């Protein structure tokens, strides 16, 4: 076992480096990712080490970035493109939904699309408008795309490499507010595979289900609850499409209560699908309706009030109470 302490952003950087060393068809594309190393420095030093042909500073246009990446895929490359911020992905939405998601299907499997789209997402960093959004459900509901989100440096290191190795297009949602959080990375063993969910904490009273930035918040909530004698199980979904719900169903059948937590707005967010699936599979085990702790159905608010918009430890524990008292 070889472990190193890395920040989550640093772990993605190390994972990109490992993937690029392994396969020279892996090329990075995006705005400011080369000389600057990305606005979050996630691609720091990669252009210096791999050259401008492997790490391309592109013109400023998200549809252009994704559309030309599709062309590079046709030529046999495995592009990893960076969308600078979550709220900037929409100009590329047509290429993602109409081309990237459909090419394999359109061609009856003749064209494979090994394309990774990295998107720093979510709020909590005091940013201006369009810099704090959580659009993941829009990609989860797009048939033909796969969507994952990492929550720990270890997962960040391995999941980015596994996403690059995938022959399907992967939307890689990076929890930007966790970029600087440090953790141990075992660089010799990924543990579970890319498409698996994992139990982050065992508990018997209720199951918290989260991904990306909210995993840490749920673990904090579980720590607080434990002080009051309530044991919460925390599941990190990791893969949002396809979903690996086996561990979720197993957990909810044990605890009888489920609370889904995400920053994205509530209506038709991932919590809606999770609530439906848990109700379908665990109906007789449920002691209470599935609870959802989410952003409100408004555009992302001014940052001075974002802490009221974002799910907090208190709101999560309140939802647990509601489920317990039902």
């Amino acid at each position, binding site marked *: 076992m070889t472990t190193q302490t890395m920040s989550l952003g640093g772990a993605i950087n190390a994972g990109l480096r490992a993937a690029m060393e392994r396969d020279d068809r892996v090329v990075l594309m995006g705005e400011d990712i080369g000389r600057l190393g990305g606005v979050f420095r996630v691609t720091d030093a990669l252009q210096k080490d791999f050259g401008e042909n492997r790490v391309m500073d592109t013109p400023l*246009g998200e549809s252009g970035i994704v559309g030309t990446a599709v062309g*590079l895929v046709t030529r046999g490359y495995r592009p990893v493109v960076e969308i600078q911020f979550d709220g900037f992905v929409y100009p590329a939405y047509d290429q993602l939904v109409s081309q990237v998601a459909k090419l394999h299907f359109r*061609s009856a*499997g003749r064209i494979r699309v090994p394309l990774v789209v990295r998107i720093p997402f979510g709020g909590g960093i005091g940013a201006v408008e369009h810099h704090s959004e959580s659009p993941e459900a829009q990609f989860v509901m797009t048939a*033909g795309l796969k969507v994952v989100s990492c929550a720990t440096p270890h997962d960040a290191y391995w999941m980015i490499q596994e996403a690059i190795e995938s022959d399907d297009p992967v939307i890689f949602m990076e929890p930007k507010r966790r970029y600087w959080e440090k953790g141990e990375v075992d660089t010799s063993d990924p543990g579970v595979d890319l498409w698996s969910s994992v139990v982050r904490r065992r508990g018997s009273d209720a199951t918290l289900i989260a991904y990306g930035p909210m995993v840490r918040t749920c673990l904090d909530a579980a720590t607080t609850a434990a002080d009051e004698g309530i044991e919460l199980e925390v599941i990190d979904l990791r893969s949002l499409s*396809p979903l690996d719900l086996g561990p979720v169903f197993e957990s909810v059948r044990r605890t009888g209560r489920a609370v889904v937590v995400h920053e994205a707005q509530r209506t038709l967010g991932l919590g809606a699908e999770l609530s439906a699936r848990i109700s379908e599979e665990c109906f007789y085990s449920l002691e209470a309706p599935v609870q959802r702790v989410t952003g409100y159905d408004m555009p992302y608010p001014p940052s001075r009030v974002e802490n009221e918009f974002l799910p907090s430890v208190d709101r999560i524990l309140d939802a647990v109470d509601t489920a317990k008292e039902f």
Partner: protein
Amino acid sequence: MTLPMTPQPGALAGEHELVQLLSPDGTRRHDPRFPDDDVEREQVEGWYRDLVLTRRIDTEAFALQRHGELGLWPPALGQEAAQVGSGRALRPQDFAFPTYRDHGVAYCRGVDPTQLLGLFRGTELGSWDPQEHRYGLPQIIIGAQTLHATGYAMGLLLDGAVGHGDPERDAATIAYLGDGATSQGDVAESFVWAASYQAPVVFFCQNNQYAISVPLERQTRVPIAQRAAGFGFEGIRVDGNDVLACHAVTRAALQKARDGGGPTLIEAVTYRMGAHTTSDDPTRYRTADETEQWKAKDPIARVRAYLEAEGATPDFFASVEAEADQLGARLREACAQLPEPDLADLFSSVHTDLPPELAAQRDDAVAWQALDERGAA
């Protein structure tokens, strides 16, 4: 206040500055910028055959739609010279990214014409292997393919497949688009990318004067070719009904790209003689007079006139006609025999694997199929 009106249709469709090597009456002329002394009668006879067969594919498919065999067909009638001239300028290692109307280019790339029918019959979404023919699948989202072509061209640069002076090795891409597409953001972005990276890509715009019903003048205030200058590369206007000129201009632009000279925009000025698709009614937005004027510039008649003057025999024309008849019969037969798709099969091509939830949905679909079959029996 009403919005200011754009000029009348036709104001941007004049023939000034057009490269033309074969006039509508079949007279050859030469342009020092696009030498074509090497083009002899035999080659023009080959193109004549291509033009006639392309038109037959088109008219046959149109008839199949009218007989209810196809759900839809986008006619290429009138645009054969633009498609054959440019398509025959490509080398095997070049890659073409088409729209949904480029039947003549598909034919030039060796796609069997019967494979053009599946998309429009509703049996398939994409019927050939793009890598085998170096010819992409029909793109229905207007302009999206110009970015794919540009990205592929960037890949050629990364591969070092440009600028060796080796005709077997150097490669380029060509992106087909229409006049309506020039208003799309993706096309503007592809021009930016192509210029910025000096990508070996030729943008071949068939300006057929209408985006369904909307005339060119609603898309642009300047000739389309002029747009290229603003992005920093060359734009050329060519008579799109002149197969010799389309070939010469595209050949030069592709060679420039293969030599490392970067992108070119070609505006092939032509006319969509038919409807946008079989669901369209052009009499609502254009006059019979206008269509008649363009009929006089027919891309096939002028080649026939030239070949007749050069001494091509009646036997030659008769043999091409007979070949077209055979192709028509083959298309009719193949259309009826296209296999019906099986919904259950389609689940496995959503991704390269079949995730469990999708497998469960497939099982659902299979169970319904079994029920339906029992009901039918």
